[in-house]
């Protein structure tokens, strides 16, 4: 109960933190949503990359194959909350978080930062769920 109250208070006190999808797309392209393609996002999400250690890395390595279910950090085994917004409404609502994790996860998985185009595509794909 306390936790929920805390979350509510937090979201009230920091209204600037919550971001709408439209704003999000506009950040990655002046044209907004129409510039992005969910199919390309899907491909990127499922693309396999070979890391230096010879192991295959892809987004599902940690987030799992079923986006409506919890994932698991491949190294630490810590549970990662589901990516699908249908079960986890907090996904893609905080700009700072989105920025941080795109940077970290693209670097770790793909080996480089993702472009704005790729980020928008990924969001379009992921927010379908």
């Amino acid at each position, binding site marked *: 109960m306390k936790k929920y109250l805390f979350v509510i208070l937090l979201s009230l006190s920091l209204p600037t933190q919550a971001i709408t999808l439209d704003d999000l797309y506009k950040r990655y392209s002046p044209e907004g949503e129409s510039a992005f393609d969910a199919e390309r996002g899907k491909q990127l999400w499922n693309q396999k990359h070979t890391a230096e250690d010879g192991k295959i890395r892809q987004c599902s390595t940690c987030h799992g194959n079923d986006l409506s279910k919890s994932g698991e950090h491949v190294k*630490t*085994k810590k549970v990662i909350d589901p990516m699908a917004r249908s079960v986890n409404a907090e996904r893609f609502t905080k700009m700072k978080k989105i920025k941080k994790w795109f940077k970290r996860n693209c*670097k*770790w998985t793909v080996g480089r930062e993702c472009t704005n185009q790729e980020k928008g595509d990924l969001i379009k794909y992921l927010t379908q769920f």
Partner: protein
Amino acid sequence: MTQQTKSILVWDVPTRVFHWLLVIAFAIAWLSYEDNRYLDTHIFSGYTFLGLLIFRLIWGVFGTHYARFQQFSYNSTEVISYIKGLFGEDLRHYVGHNPAGAWAIFALIGFGLALTLSGLFVLGGEEQHGPLAGIVSFRQSGIFRETHEVAAYGLLLLVFIHFCGVITESLLHKENLIGAMFRGTKSADTESASVRPHRLIATTMITVILAYVMATFGGYLTETADQPYLPFKGPELVQNELWQEECSDCHFAFHPSLLPARSWQLIFKQQADHFDDDLDLDEETVTELLAYANANSADLEQIEPAWRMNSSIASKDTPLRITDVRYWKKKHEEIDAEVWKRDSVKSKANCAACHLDAEQGTFEDADMRIPGDNSLDSIEWLKSVLGGAAK
């Protein structure tokens, strides 16, 4: 030899209750000392033991005739002549304690006090709990631990001697002294009179101890899977919201008291290659996190784990992993490889899987349970019994 003509009440009820509760408390203390998990039980038995001894000291002055110290204060000549008598013709019978037994009792009380008082010092020094928390330092606690151990073995030896004495006496006088400590009656000459039983005082003693049992272990009866009962609450460590936010996504957020400041400094210096991850924290964030880590690091030795972790790291080393520190390895080496693979554990870094107070960072001995191990069967059993009794 005294003429034995009648049976009288020699040991009043409080003395007998004291005696047997002391035996039980001593046994529980021995059974619970080794496994850290049962430190709460060990401390419970220690306090009970001390409480009983204090009662006995009072009862030795104000109690009934045979319970008074004055009644069985014999000097060494009397003890020697009594022991000599055992092997000769002059076998003397005492209604209360015989001189040798009396000396054993004074020694038992003395060692008992040394044992429990040194225990309080260990509790204050090592765990920073109890009345001496904050007064005894970690470093000073070593000497008290040694005293505590010597006193424990000394008392065990004395109990053995006392027991042999009781058996010898019982055989020589053909009188069951163990039974007498249950019933309270012994044979006596005609001049001796029964003492008052003092049942009310004994009932009060038992009530107080039962209340103490409930206060200590009652939490196990009401705990749920989400809110397990923490028998030990450690000192409150400083928490930091930003730390919790930035460090808890990929793994459990380790409290800074688990590594020395130089380790945290290195971890943040190498944040671009944090175990193959680029943390990419901005300067402002790093400054705040590092300030928090520095102010609460293991070298401050504010709690036992911090002190032990820090003391086991050579000053030239700067470990990046908690799980590489010698003390950590030593404490966890006995855990089965299979346990680490359990779904509920999975990783060594998943401290909270076993340590109920990992979030708080206190890692109290008694707040640890290996998930899936049902070492708590006895508690489950007790719960069902008490639950049944309540209905």
